[in-house]
């Protein structure tokens, strides 16, 4: 099965079908500010004006705060693996790509995180190809694109009144098969994809990363790091909205011998992140910390896995209260001689 074709207004039928099949369905919905993934309440999914949710989908697989273990005196038990199946519809390609990158860390380094992987396995991501990127979007500059299927289970391409849904994983294939819609022809699919290829072409590349990447590392001591980080207030917003930032802190919460061990999102842009027990801190200054964030995205992760840890969603650019811009950071540091 290559792909299925549904009318745009048949989408509710697909989602209701998924609900009936036991999925918790989430779709983009307007929030007080911007958009969020909310439980699907039935009816039409209005995506007019939707580009990105304010927070990425990472919270669905890596919750902001999670009790991964509970203890009663000396007896500790892992939290049971979450079981519910979820269907996330309207995910953008950048977010799905980010999860494929986080998989490297939580699955492929020789240690497998059971809670993360259960959530990952239980989630079907129906990615919505992007027809109208924002000025802050730069996915094509970091290896992604408006129709990128990396990390997706199904990719939805809009084609007039039709939606073409193409499976891009075994999970996605199974989901589409169960939904029983008519097949889309190869021609229809190619035609739809060609439109998104045009969207990609229209996005001007910011840099040639193959050339810029080694410069970023060579310029480890460059003055430009101080400059780009000078406005940073170390609030961590960039890391929290980032779909691929995956670092966490761990704390025990409880009293009288009973409690839970929780992990929660942490930020390399904040000073306690690397503070040693001795008081020594290898990344004491914010320029060092901002450099860490940029080099992790564009150099260190690439060194380990051959891919950038940035997906170009631009959320950090939007969220920063001080207008620190990661695109500008790469440009400035790579340009320094």
């Amino acid at each position, binding site marked *: 099965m290559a792909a299925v074709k549904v009318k745009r207004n048949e989408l509710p039928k697909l989602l209701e079908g998924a609900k009936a099949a036991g999925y918790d369905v989430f779709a983009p919905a307007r929030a007080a500010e911007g958009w969020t993934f909310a439980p699907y309440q039935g009816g039409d999914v209005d995506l007019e004006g939707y580009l990105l949710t304010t927070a990425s989908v990472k919270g669905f697989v890596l919750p902001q705060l999670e009790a991964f273990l509970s203890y009663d005196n000396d007896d500790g*038990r892992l939290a049971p693996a979450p079981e519910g199946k979820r269907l996330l519809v309207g995910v953008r390609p950048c977010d799905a790509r980010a999860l494929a990158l986080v998989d490297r860390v939580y699955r492929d*380094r020789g240690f497998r995180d059971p809670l993360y992987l259960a959530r990952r396995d239980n989630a079907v991501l129906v990615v919505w190809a992007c027809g109208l990127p924002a000025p802050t979007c730069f996915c094509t500059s970091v290896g992604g694109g408006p129709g990128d299927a990396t990390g997706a289970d199904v990719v939805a391409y809009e084609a007039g009144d039709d939606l073409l849904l193409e499976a891009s994983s075994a999970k996605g294939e199974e989901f589409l098969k169960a939904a029983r819609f008519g097949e889309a022809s190869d021609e229809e699919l190619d035609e739809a994809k060609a439109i998104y290829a045009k969207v990609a072409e229209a996005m001007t590349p910011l840099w040639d990363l193959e050339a810029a990447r080694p410069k970023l590392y060579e310029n480890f001591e460059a003055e430009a790091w101080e400059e780009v980080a000078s406005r940073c207030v170390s609030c961590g917003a960039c890391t929290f909205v980032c779909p691929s930032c995956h670092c966490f802190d761990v704390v025990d919460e409880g*009293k009288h011998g009973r409690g839970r*061990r929780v*992990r929660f999102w942490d930020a390399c842009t904040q000073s306690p992140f690397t503070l040693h027990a001795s008081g020594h801190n290898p990344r004491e200054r914010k320029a060092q910390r901002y450099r*860490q964030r940029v080099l992790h995205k564009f*150099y*260190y992760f690439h060194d380990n896995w051959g891919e950038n840890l940035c997906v170009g969603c631009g959320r950090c650019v939007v969220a920063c209260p001080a207008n620190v811009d990661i695109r500008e950071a790469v440009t400035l540091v790579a340009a320094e001689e």
Partner: protein
Amino acid sequence: MATEIKNAPLAETPLLPQPTTLERVVVETTAADLKSFYLKFKDGPRWDYLPGQFAELSLYGYGEAPIGIASSPTEGEELMFTVFNTEGKVTRALHRLAPGATVGLRGPLGNTWPLEELRGKNVVVIGGGFAFTTQRSLIKYVLANREDFADLTVVYGARSPGALLYKPELAEWEKSPELTLHLTVDKGDETWSGREGFVPTVVEEEKLPPDDAIALICGPPIMIKFTLPVMDKLGWKPEQIYTSLEMQMKCGVGMCGRCNIGPKYVCVDGPVFSFAELSKLPQEY
């Protein structure tokens, strides 16, 4: 089901500690700020480890701390950790424990001292202060597999005689024909008839030869800073000198993201690095 999870290997449940019983505690220093904790897995021996590796010590309600394994796998089932009381939550609570208490362990974590490269070579251990712990593991390992290695030379220094770790063992080693031990303290006291002086000076005076040798150096940054130029003068190459690094860590398995030095994570790619490797990384540790 819960039992299954509890016994699953670290690869599948990397954040779940395995329970051990604290068998005994040895106060190592006169200031009592360093104690050795001897632990035994509650359901028998659970993992194989090698000198240089570390584990996360877990106390429910307090948290976890990454600590180098000071025992050698050649010593039997007991695992030993020598812990400095930093007055942080975990180490303070550990220091208050009495035998019989339960301590959680996650490990073994990280890489090992370069055992393959050490095989057949002269082994030089240079230690200072309380960083000596995983070096002790290596020394015990070499002594237990003596025929696999050539000469074993140990330089070990501390601020004062009372700050030296493993004093009964040091006394044995001083007499042993199996190794050469150069003990030194910054400043002696009335109990001390041995050498006074800093570790770099001892390395210089003893002219420790680099021929067919590998050195393992651990200690305070200031000691390492002054010892490396001395070794350079003696002809040691950065490829021949290894150290073990510390960083703030939470998970120990490359996920929580705080112990990296450039692209290398101290928890999974280290803690042991050669100075040749470190020379290619940012000086950010």
